[in-house]
């Protein structure tokens, strides 16, 4: 260890000093091991995405022969051109329309309800709060069939309405907003009230602007949730023109091209559907991470 040579002044305190050096050596070793572990796992976590990107620019033969390679033998955008011919753009537009409307809906409705539960005094508030929480405990997959039944009865099956409205409010979002509003000091609202603002006015112009962090968290969770939503779009429509990216790509991967090995095509589809969430993720990472621990829930 270089430290021993570098500290001649400590010579009289030899026993203590070697102890310290050994200690420091341990620390160094531990740090090195920590980094090695982290780097190994980072490779495990990042490499599949790199392969996804690389393969979508490969030819079929190249993808099969050389799955590990990150540089295509011959660069080709054939996969992307093919995607354009299988309605992929339509799915993309559908996903955007649905996700944007669902997100806006959740922002508005969840914060309204969250505010009511946090601040307004009305008969049945406790019961409603409890009900909202109970609702979160129901596993989503269990509701697939009954949701379909209700959609059919309401004549909303196979329509954008049926795809969007059921997702437009979620118990978890209400809960997140409620928790946030409870933490805001009441004085601000009282001042607004005294100035003569009505309940909605107070909520809209005074409280909501203060809730920016919570709203951003909710936006991200909602967008990501509805963008990645699969089962609801599986049961709320069967018309191909209403396919979102998730249902469309799932069909592409398992059906039509399922047996074949056209992996560049499939991975190009997967890549394109990952990009919007990736962008949102990297821009709002901080809020994502907050949301993950605050809500710990998806639609």
């Amino acid at each position: 260890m270089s430290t021993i040579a570098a500290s001649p002044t400590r010579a009289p305190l030899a026993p203590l000093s070697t102890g310290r050096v050994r200690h420091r050596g341990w620390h160094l070793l531990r740090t090195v091991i920590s980094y090695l572990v982290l780097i190994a796992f980072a490779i495990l976590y990042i490499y599949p995405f790199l392969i996804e990107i690389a393969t979508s620019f490969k030819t079929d033969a190249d993808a099969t022969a050389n799955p590990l390679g990150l540089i295509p033998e011959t660069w080709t955008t054939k996969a992307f051109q093919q995607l354009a011919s299988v309605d992929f753009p339509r799915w993309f537009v559908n996903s955007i329309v649905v996700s944007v409307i669902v997100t806006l809906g959740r922002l508005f409705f969840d914060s309204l309800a969250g505010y009511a539960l946090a601040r307004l005094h009305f008969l049945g508030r406790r019961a409603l709060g409890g009900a909202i929480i109970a609702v979160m405990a129901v596993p989503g997959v269990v509701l697939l069939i009954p949701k379909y039944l209700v959609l059919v009865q309401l004549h909303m099956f196979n329509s954008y309405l049926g795809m969007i409205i059921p997702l437009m409010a979620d118990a978890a979002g209400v809960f997140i907003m409620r928790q946030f509003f409870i933490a805001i000091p009441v004085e601000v609202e009282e001042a607004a009230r005294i100035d003569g603002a009505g309940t909605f006015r107070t909520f809209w112009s005074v409280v909501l602007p203060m809730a920016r962090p919570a709203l951003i968290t909710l936006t991200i969770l909602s967008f990501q949730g509805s963008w990645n939503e699969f089962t609801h779009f599986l049961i709320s429509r069967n018309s191909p023109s209403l396919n979102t990216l998730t249902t469309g790509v799932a069909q592409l991967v398992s059906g039509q091209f399922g047996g074949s090995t056209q992996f560049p095509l499939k991975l190009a589809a997967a890549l394109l559907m990952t990009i919007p969430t990736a962008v949102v993720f990297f821009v709002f990472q901080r809020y994502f991470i907050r949301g993950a621990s605050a809500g710990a829930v998806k639609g």
Partner: protein
Amino acid sequence: MTTSPSTPGVSPAARRPVRHRGGIRGREGTAGWVFMTPVIVILGLFLLLPIIAAVWVSISDWSGHGSPLDAGFVGAENYQTLLAKPGLSQQNLATSLRNNFYYVILVVPIQTVLALFLASVLNGRRLKGKGFFRTAFYFPSVTSTIAIMTVFLFLFTTTGVVNQMLSWLGLHGPNWFQDPRGVLRLILSGLHLVDTSNPPGWLVNNHFLGMSWYDWLAGPSVAMCALIVLAVWTTGGTFMLMFLAALQDIPDEVVEAARVDGATRWQSFRSVTLPALRPTLFLVVTLGLIGTWQIFDQIYILGGGNPAKTTLTPAYLSYQASFGDGKWGQGAAISFILFAIIIVMTIIQRLVMRERKHLPRRRRFRPAPPIARAEQGATAPAGGTR
């Protein structure tokens, strides 16, 4: 749950200003209900009503045509067909339960340990680039399962990435997603404990839910193992974040005090860190259990239980029975069986992981405050795991 510390601080009194009485209170009452209406309507129509509808359908013979209300009442017949009557329905349910059971008991512990491990390594004080690693580990959690599954289909082909890497170690990897062989059975026959061409009679001749013990004990199929890897890989990051948040809440002094007192690193981890992580651990296991019992998307992509029904799960079976075979009653009944399993598993887990003696006195006798209860409830939902 970053919000949790702030909430108990707000006393009920602070939230209930005494001044607003009479008129304002009345106006607020109306406003409260108006504010709640959209959420009540949406959740009522698409959560509460469906549950009621499903209860009815599960005890009816509705075939998918016309209104379910006109269907005939059949009592517990659908449940009987599934649970008690020998036949394809019962076999399918048993198979799906077996598959999902192995999936749950492997994914939940492995992902919990991995998440805790990554979080503890990442929590090292002097590490640089924490943000980078955290992002890398968390990113799969925010991407679509469909996209991830597509990538995994490619990684796990016969000549795919995983098998190429195994071949560096001199191993010959299987054709993962096409391989229905049960792993437990492979291990036992590899150890010459069981002869697969002539399995022991007592295993073959005893049945539970219409499936022989021998089949129950087959273990997860090779294909299912690939799905297990996928689940651990994707969800590990989410849970790592939760552990990381909890670890950062433990004051350094506490751990240091233990070290000064002569505890080894492992001892201080076991006796100081781990107890402090208990609530998070509880949350992670609960979320894991609930999520893993609902695995659906991946199964759909594999074509509904391929290979040889070894990846069939109750969630998919319920979908298939209804939308595929038109047996809506059975489909709904399977959903409720799944619901019951999730509830029972969660209760068992609560009993097992219950805090025994370390409960502070003041919390032992008083019922939990509503907010604390609310937060426990919040932990339950989560499609967190895939």
